[in-house]
């Protein structure tokens, strides 16, 4: 309980330290990439829960991310002004789901409010995850990987081929998302620091939920399913149901990440749905150590940041592919794991006992 609190606190301190550092070095423009990193990290920790703790793989999480992002982008930019008179639109308007604003050219634009778009998008993803998760999670190992990969490819091709979703150009002009009065998730330069803290605040909240879950009865049951599914079932754990729920949960994290990043960036493109994105997320979870949320989030922070800064140049996707191969070959337990801490502890102990002896 307290260890968990200290870890979360330590992480929050790191986040503040990064901001202070950029402030002092007059490089606060880096916060834009760090903010985007936060939203990708939200997806990564959800995926880590699925892969590391429940032992189920998904190579289609970019698909969930993209569905969330695209749907929210579409709903908040698609002009309903022409249909204003229809009873359906009038009803939506009455329910307060719509908002009127001026478009770039000063024309009247009637579209969904970001809040209603966000909720609708995330709920849609949850339903989709539930529907495909049911049959797909009956598969194990390679077969599950292939099925989720297939899902990811389908979403990518749909996004790329649909003209109302902007085809290869994606959707731009997505409005900022004012989650509370005065707190706007969006790309305006003035709100950079605020956006940074809002984004990482959301990640820390998500992290807290997942850490709580891991330490709970459900978390134990998920580890049991990972370890020996038949024995877990024999202990009264409804394994199929739990796998489905954790799959939907991690898809939900991906959807929220997709929605928020799209509003932050003001746009979304088909590359967000690409299979290479899914592979990248799995690579980050793998290098972080599969069964370590902290490992996953730190690796996500580092790798996504450098990737977004363009440090890997045109080899961006290749870098993540290479990382995945190297990790699987040389450190299948990831770089950040308890073992490292254990090694460090025993090393310190040895030094101390030496000192005592001499």
């Amino acid at each position, binding site marked *: 309980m307290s260890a968990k609190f200290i870890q979360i606190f330590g992480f929050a301190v790191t986040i503040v330290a990064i901001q202070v550092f950029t402030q002092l070095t007059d490089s606060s423009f880096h916060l834009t990439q760090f903010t985007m990193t936060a939203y990708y990290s939200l997806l990564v920790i959800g995926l880590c829960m699925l892969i590391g703790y429940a032992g189920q793989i998904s190579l289609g999480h970019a698909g969930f991310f993209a569905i969330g992002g695209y749907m929210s982008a579409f709903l908040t930019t698609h002009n309903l002004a022409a249909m204003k008179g229809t009873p359906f639109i009038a009803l939506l308007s009455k329910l307060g789901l719509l908002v009127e604003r001026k478009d770039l050219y000063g024309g009247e634009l009637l579209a969904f409010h970001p809040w209603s778009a966000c909720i609708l998008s995330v709920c849609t993803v949850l339903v989709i995850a539930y529907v495909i998760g049911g049959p797909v999670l009956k598969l194990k190992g390679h077969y599950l990987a292939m099925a989720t990969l297939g899902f990811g490819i389908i979403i990518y091709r749909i996004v790329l081929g649909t003209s109302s979703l902007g085809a290869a150009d994606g959707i731009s002009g997505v409005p900022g998302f004012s989650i509370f009065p005065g707190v706007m998730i969006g790309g305006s330069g003035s709100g950079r620091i605020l956006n940074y803290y809002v984004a990482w605040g959301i990640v820390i909240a998500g992290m807290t*939920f*997942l850490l*709580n*879950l891991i*330490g*709970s*009865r*459900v*978390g*134990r*049951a998920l*580890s*049991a399913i990972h*370890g*020996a599914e*038949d*024995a*877990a*079932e*024999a*202990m*009264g*754990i*409804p*394994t199929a149901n739990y796998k489905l*729920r*954790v799959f939907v*949960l991690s898809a939900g994290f991906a959807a929220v990440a997709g929605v928020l990043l799209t509003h932050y960036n003001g746009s979304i493109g088909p590359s967000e749905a690409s299979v290479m994105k899914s592979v990248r997320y799995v690579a980050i979870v793998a290098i972080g150590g599969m*069964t370590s949320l902290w490992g996953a989030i730190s690796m996500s922070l580092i790798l996504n940041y450098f990737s977004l800064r363009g440090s890997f140049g045109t080899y961006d996707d290749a870098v993540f592919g290479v990382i995945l191969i190297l990790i699987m070959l040389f450190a299948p337990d990831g770089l950040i794991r308890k073992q490292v801490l254990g090694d460090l502890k025993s090393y310190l102990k040895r030094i101390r006992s030496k000192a005592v002896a001499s």
Partner: protein
Amino acid sequence: MTTLLTVEKLSKRFGGLQAVNEVSFSVEAGSIKALIGPNGAGKTTLFNLISGVIAPDSGVINFCGSQVQGLRPHQVASKGMARTFQHIRLFPKMSVLENIMIGRHIHSRAGFVAGMLSIPYTWSEEKQIREKAHEIMAFLDLESLAHVEATSLSYGQQRNVELGRALACEPKLLLLDEPAAGLNMSETTELGALISRIRNTGITVLIVEHDMGLVMDISDEILVLSYGKKIADDKPLAIQSNSEVINVYLGEDEDDA
């Protein structure tokens, strides 16, 4: 005595093999019943049918007054039936304590949302789970191993952890699948005493076992299977002198059978 488990004309066929053939028997509450038979007699299949791992082709399984055939294993487990496995199935990368805590799953209720939000009632529930697990570890002399990774233990200790995990379910019926396999003589004797102790706490035991000494010592009744069919169901002494059972085990003249 009341009847806890009744099996009626249970059958299961795997392709050309009639693994279990119209087997009927019952288990009295508070008794130890053994299930024996030569290799391939269908003992484990019968176990898997009762615990819901596989669904029967026909027949009825009545447990605690409700029919459980065709239910999923977790549904059967939640009705009060716990089992151990012929090949030990502990949860790797989890401590002895955590393994046994899993056994409390059906007696607790914190779900995904309660877990994520760490709602206060889950704290007291966690505490109860922990206390019960410690109680069970004390019963099985596992206290000193509480924080050791379960799969790193010796074979005999792993057996005990698996037994502890099943006991944590507080089952009405405990199914033990060859618990003495791989144990030496003194360990087997200890196991026999332990099973008797478990029965004395009010848990009914159904055990598949090859070790005849153990079976004859502890069982109240013995069911003998051969080629999927029931050939005897009686008290240990009667089983020892049953000619058909002797035939099956010692393989007397085929003509006599």
